[in-house]
């Protein structure tokens, strides 16, 4: 067990709270940097997907995990970012400009979608964002002279002038830099007044308002930031997959994204990454496991969906705090060994809350 003797307020604010943080995150960074030389190309590509989904997951985590607003149409923002990037790159725009445009356009769309969030919440907000997802998917399919419709659109590699990043390693480093940047931005936000305002809105709107938080402004801001990250993730996704079609941004993708943050652990930054790893590794595990299953089960088409569904139900039932919550328990078990008790993470039932103003 580690006890930290605090003598300075700065110790509460700094990112690495103790030597353990410095060591482990340093090790993580170092291994991510040497990964292109250590991993075979296939797994490097999978790691790139993890980074891309982690960026999108950070955005959705900000919205769902920290502001308490659920979006069932997040794939739409991914799609807006991906198609913006594809169209601009194919038109010869330099990469930094095009990805900024992808993020900004997504953010603008996110602000518009955020408007119903000022009035509706819970399941009704879910329905509104779901409907928005369908509209965008349909729009991408119908706006053929820009998006190529259902025939699809191929995407050139990212380039500035004549210098193009077309190797797997190069693109991996690009994603790594953007992912680290996005993570730092979100971590910074959450230790500053803006992030605390989001958390306040999640836990009690009425109280947040009486503390002087402008609900409409912060909810819109949360939607905009979340959509911007989804747009940036979408832009990278477009380059990675090199071929876009509207059905990649359907309701299934939206549910995958939501699954990612719920299984990762709502309300934690680590959760976005653990969820992204889950989302990428799970299909691999399923296809590996196929060979060991009887043919009737192993070769049936619905296997992946069934396993996903079962895993989600298991998480909601047994580990609502997700993979990160499980990790916290494991860590505490080791820290307190042999004093860990089973009920340590049981949340006390909250006291009656007033429903008057909800």
């Amino acid at each position, binding site marked *: 067990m580690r006890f930290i003797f605090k003598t300075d*307020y*700065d110790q*509460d*604010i700094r990112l690495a709270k103790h030597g353990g943080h410095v060591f482990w995150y340093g090790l993580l960074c170092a291994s991510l940097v040497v990964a292109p030389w250590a991993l075979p190309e296939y797994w490097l590509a999978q790691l790139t997907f993890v980074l891309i989904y982690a960026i999108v997951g950070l955005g959705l985590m900000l919205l769902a995990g920290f502001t308490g607003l659920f979006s069932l149409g997040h794939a739409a923002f991914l799609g807006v970012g991906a198609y913006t990037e594809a169209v601009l790159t194919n038109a010869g725009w330099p990469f930094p400009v095009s990805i900024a445009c992808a993020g900004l356009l997504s953010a603008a769309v996110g602000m518009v979608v955020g408007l119903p969030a000022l009035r509706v919440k819970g399941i009704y907000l879910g329905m509104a964002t779901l409907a928005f997802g369908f509209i965008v998917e349909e729009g991408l399919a119908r706006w053929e002279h820009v998006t190529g419709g259902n025939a699809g659109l191929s995407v050139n590699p990212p380039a500035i002038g004549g210098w193009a990043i077309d190797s797997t390693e190069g693109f991996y480093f690009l994603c790594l830099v953007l992912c680290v940047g996005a993570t730092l*931005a979100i971590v*910074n*936000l959450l*230790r*500053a*007044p*803006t*992030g*605390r*305002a989001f*958390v*306040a809105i*999640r*836990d*009690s709107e*009425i*109280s*947040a*308002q*009486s*503390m*002087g*938080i*402008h*609900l409409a402004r912060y909810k819109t*801001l949360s939607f905009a930031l979340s959509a911007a990250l989804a747009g940036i993730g979408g832009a990278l996704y477009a380059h990675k997959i090199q071929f876009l079609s509207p059905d990649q941004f359907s309701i299934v993708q939206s549910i995958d994204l939501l699954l990612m943050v719920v299984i990762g652990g709502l*309300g934690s930054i680590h959760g976005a990454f653990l969820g992204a790893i889950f989302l990428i590794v799970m299909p691999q595990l399923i296809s590996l496991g196929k060979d060991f299953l009887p043919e009737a089960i192993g070769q049936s088409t619905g296997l992946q969906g069934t396993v996903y569904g079962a895993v989600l139900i298991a998480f909601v039932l047994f580990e609502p705090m997700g993979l990160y919550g499980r990790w916290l328990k494991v860590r505490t078990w080791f820290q307190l060994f042999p004093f860990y008790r089973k009920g340590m993470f049981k*949340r*006390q039932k*909250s*006291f*009656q*809350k*007033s429903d008057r*103003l909800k």
Partner: protein
Amino acid sequence: MNDDLLLSASHLSVRFGGVLAVNNVSFDVRKGEVFTLIGPNGAGKTTVFNLISRIYTPTSGEILFNGAGGPLKLTGQPPHQVAGLGIARTFQNIELFEHATVLQNLLIGRHTQRRTGLLSDLLFTGKARAAEIAAREKVEQVIDFLDLQHHRESMVAGLPYGVRKVVELARALCTEPRLLLLDEPSSGLNVEETEDMAFWISDIKNELGITVLMVEHDMTLVSKVSDRVLAMSMGAELATGTPAEVQSHPGVIEAYLGTVDDVSSLRRENHVKEPA
């Protein structure tokens, strides 16, 4: 508006459908006093609070507040600006940010004082860091004032009710209010905690110089800390004055206990038939 008044409500009425929750209520809160609203359940006390914190809009009447920039009409302000004007409140059924630590809850109380924008928050610039430390220093003073040191890093969801009550008071103090609205500060507290609350309310008035407007049922606490009391019943005001004056006011006794006729009609001998 008179200079020694902080808040002045005149002819407030609010109607929810067929219910007249507050009926033509007028009162003044002087600077530096503890002003208490009492009354039976459903008298409209909390509704008056919600009118002041702009959660409801009055059907008629107006509220003037003597803010830092001179008197202004509170009824024309959007709800999220009320805190910035210097009015902080607590809630009857505690409304804390449950899945955050006590420290984070108190820091949210500093929101009205924020000086950093989105960009400096995202990059956590030197300015944001300095603002954080300044906010933290102020929060630490409040923690010290209300003896919350032990609970600084605890999650609110795991705290007992009595401590949550104090955390909510602390969060309101972190906004550096001129007027503090306390909605039943002693409800759910035991005798000892209620006594602590009484001391803190007097300290808030005397040491911090904050005017307090509270709703309270516990008459011991009311008489201990209040300078003036307004008694309400059925949405209308009954009496205003010192705690002793209001307690002995016949209308107030009637509202709480009923009239002599009501009581005597319950007496056994009035139901026993006289032997013929």
